């Protein structure tokens, strides 16, 4: 167990391993993406109420449910950074945050584009998921800007770790409090996301394919970006120099 943990902590080991995995993961990603998108665009049935916009839903749900994974990941990575001072954890945390912001932004965008059809409005404060997703986005941005503001990378790593942990707790609390706030202000049923007939295997199977594709995307992106980060931070170590000279 400990050995395993230590190996993960070694940048070189991660670099080699991810180098071997990346082609496979990328292949799987492309496969799932193509299947998911084609299925979504061609085969998803039209809804009596939502017409062809169910095609948006496939993307939306996949991106949205993946975007919820980011704060927990960052919090775990942050804990590892603070407790075991493992550099790899911080590199992952660093690359995950901007990706999470992209996911959140796309969730917000696809959700509100669909909302413009379903609700006749692009934005609706009285829906708890919208509001809490917006604040998740804000918190992610604050983690990113804290990191870019601190110019010492070690300080930045630890500060962002603290902020991610606090933020993770906070995202949960915000989600509950926003829900609670809405149930009291006005019934959310009219706007419930589960309205419509977006259920049944014809819908959820392509959605599942897309969800898997999104997790693969996360894996591929994080691996590639982390490899870059490793090269940058370890640029003076012997193995990186060998690697650079070999690549030339």
């Amino acid at each position, binding site marked *: 167990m400990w050995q395993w943990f230590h190996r993960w902590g070694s940048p070189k080991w991660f670099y080699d391993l991810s180098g071997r995995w990346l082609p496979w993961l990328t292949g799987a990603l492309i496969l799932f993406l193509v299947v998911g998108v084609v299925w979504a665009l061609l085969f998803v049935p039209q809804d009596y109420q939502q017409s062809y916009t169910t095609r948006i839903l496939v993307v939306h749900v996949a991106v949205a449910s993946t975007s919820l994974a980011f704060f927990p990941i960052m919090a775990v990575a942050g804990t590892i950074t*603070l407790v075991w001072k493992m550099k790899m954890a911080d590199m992952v945390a660093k690359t995950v945050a901007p990706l999470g912001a992209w996911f959140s932004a796309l969730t917000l965008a696809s959700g509100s584009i669909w909302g413009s059809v379903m609700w006749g409005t692009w934005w609706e404060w009285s829906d708890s998921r919208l509001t809490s997703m917006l*604040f998740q986005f*804000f*918190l992610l*941005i*604050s983690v990113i*800007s*804290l990191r870019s*503001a*601190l110019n*010492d990378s*070690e*300080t930045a790593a*630890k*500060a962002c770790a*603290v*902020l991610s*942990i*606090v*933020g993770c707790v*906070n995202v949960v*609390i*915000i989600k509950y*409090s*926003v829900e*609670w*706030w809405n149930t*009291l202000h006005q019934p959310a049923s009219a706007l419930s996301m589960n309205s419509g007939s977006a259920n049944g295997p014809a819908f959820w199977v392509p959605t599942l394919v897309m969800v898997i594709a999104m997790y693969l995307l996360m894996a591929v992106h994080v691996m590639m970006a982390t490899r870059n980060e490793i090269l940058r931070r370890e640029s003076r170590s012997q193995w990186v120099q060998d690697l650079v000279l070999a690549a030339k």
Partner: protein
Amino acid sequence: MQETQLLANGFSAFAATLKRDLLVAFKRRNDLLNPLMFFFIVVSLFPIGITPEREALAEIAVGVLWVCALLASLLSLDNLYRSDFEDGSLELLILSPHSLYFMVLAKILSHWLVSGVPLVLLSPILGYMLALPEEAYPTMIITLILGTPVLSLLGSIGVALTVSLGSRGLILAMIILPMSVPVLIAGTLAVGQAVTGNPVGGHLAIMGAMLAMAVSMAPLASAAALRISIN
């Protein structure tokens, strides 16, 4: 024997820190007056910017009061560790043999006494100016008493994280404001309930729980953040 000695010294260090921070605030004067005046000015921007009609104001009163309390607390927090960081006092604090948790707690307590308490005291007047319904006053005051320390405590984490940055203000706001949303929601909800005559016990209990959690966790997080920032 030695243990109790250290504990006694710890108390005297806590007291010295609290006293010093209050003294600084008192000497600066502004620190005492400004959160109040800021609260007052920003609250009075709304009748100017939005509408002077009493019914319309009454509807937004609670929200405006809470948002302004949040902003006032945010602005006054900026200086919680800043000047200590710049003049090197923060290093002394960290190098003291006593638990940083209590030292940080002393600083936060002093901040709350200086900026939170006056705000609570001023709130009835502003509530009146914003035509807040009468039955909401007690709840508003209680929620502010419970909520403003939470704002100070949460804010302290953000300040500790950003204390070494040259450009402050905004990044601080970006960290603190989203974190404070739950307090804002709980506070406005409770007062909203009071206006409509519903029981508010549950909401107050939740705010109390938030306060308890913040008191126990936030100074720890702030202390960790301070150690990181000073590195």
